[in-house]
């Protein structure tokens, strides 16, 4: 096993686990598509970063913040439903991103490339994933309550807007990290599928979020190993591994 592959595995495991944990909140918020949309919003940022020779995650993160701000602004200025706004920004970003990203790097931006993960990237991914973990842990009960009913949460004195804002920031950070592993098209799946799998199999909240984390980690681990032994593109293989677990969970659920 080369050092480089080890770095890929380490980033994958940390990012996969954090993505799964975050995803377990996304289903309850019915926000599953937001993660998907934000992956696309990241694309123009990744393109600019590639043109300027910067880290793609950095470019992605800046554009994600812009995207979130834009959605928030449009939500206030118009009375359109959030889903419609997210949809518009999602497609527009994809189009702009497609024009900006250099052709040679387009596939990497869309589907990820773990063969470029360096020691530095692995270390930063691990540290940021742990940070995401800790923050999710802090807001988890409040977010679950807000997911059940924002009125009930507010009546308990929870500042739902602030929690949602923190949550969106976490998603932005997660997506920025995740695009390196599976690319902007698939990063939403990295977040959503492990949680969907765990939900099929769990009866308790603890089982649900632990399951989400474990399936996130296992998908990245086995996906990366499959990539190593078959040479197939890592991003799609990771997501297909995750999808495989989901299908098994559907069968076990019955």
């Amino acid at each position: 096993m080369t050092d480089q592959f080890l770095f890929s595995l380490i980033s994958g495991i940390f990012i996969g686990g954090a993505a799964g944990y975050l995803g377990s909140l996304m289903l309850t918020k019915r926000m599953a598509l937001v993660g998907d949309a934000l992956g696309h919003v990241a694309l123009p940022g990744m393109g600019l970063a590639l043109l300027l020779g910067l880290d793609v995650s950095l470019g992605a993160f800046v554009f994600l913040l812009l995207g979130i701000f834009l959605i928030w602004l449009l939500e206030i200025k118009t009375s359109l439903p959030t889903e419609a706004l997210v949809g518009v920004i999602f497609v527009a970003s994809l189009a702009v991103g497609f024009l900006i990203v250099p052709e040679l790097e387009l596939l990497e931006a869309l589907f990820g490339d773990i063969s470029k993960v360096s020691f530095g990237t692995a270390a930063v991914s691990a540290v940021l994933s742990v940070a995401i973990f800790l923050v999710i842990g802090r807001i988890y009960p409040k977010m679950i309550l807000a997911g059940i009913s924002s009125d009930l949460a507010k009546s308990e004195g929870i500042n739902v807007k602030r929690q949602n804002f923190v949550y969106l920031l976490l998603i932005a950070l997660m997506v920025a990290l995740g695009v390196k592993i599976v690319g902007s098209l698939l990063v939403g799946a990295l977040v959503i599928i492990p949680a969907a799998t765990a939900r099929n199999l769990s009866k308790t909240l603890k089982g649900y979020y632990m399951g989400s984390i474990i399936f996130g980690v296992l998908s990245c681990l086995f996906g990366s190993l499959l990539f190593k032994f078959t040479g197939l593109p890592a991003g799609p293989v990771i997501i297909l591994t995750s999808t495989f677990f989901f299908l098994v969970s559907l069968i076990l659920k019955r």
Partner: protein
Amino acid sequence: MENGIVLKVENLSVELEKEKILENLSFEVKEGEVLTILGPNGAGKTVLLKTLLGILPFRGKVEWASGVKLSYVPQRLPFIKDIPMSVQEFFGLKGALRSGIKEILDSIGLEEDILRKKIGDLSSGQFQRILIGWALVSNPSVLLFDEPMTGIDIGGQESVYELLEKLKKERNLTILLVTHDLSVVYELATRCLCLNKKMLCYSVPKELTAERLSQLYGGEIKLYQHSHD
């Protein structure tokens, strides 16, 4: 605030998205009262409860006595069944300790083994009891209750209202209750407030006449007043 008064509302108006929902409500609630809020669909009953809880913006005055602890029992929680969660974990969201939960389960007439059940697997009656129990966790002095499920069997012998009456006595509660069920008004309420954006009546239940009700509901209502000894 004067002695024994828990809530004082003066000239309360609520406007949501430029639509007037409530206009100029004034009333007060005394300690230990059961105030029922009656009105047709869209009358603003739930909005009134949420405003009193401090969730919605309003004009006018809403003043709670100092030290009053509020708890809210929402009408429905449609999303809760999407989340895998045991009853114990649901109580845990409110920070309830196991010993506290046990006492509450006794109060609402449920056995301890229900804690291990998944929320989504509860019957609607059990769920209604759990919602009430959940509201009791913080040891509130006032319960704001939005439209209890009427006509359902909540298990055991007692109705939701008998349970509420018992809890009210046990825990010295003041209750504000939104309902459609007129029998509650006569059995449980000490005061009632009829609402259709404006306040149409504010009285003791006995004064709630058929004319008043038909005015409130648009003449479509039949009234069966139970006789009480």
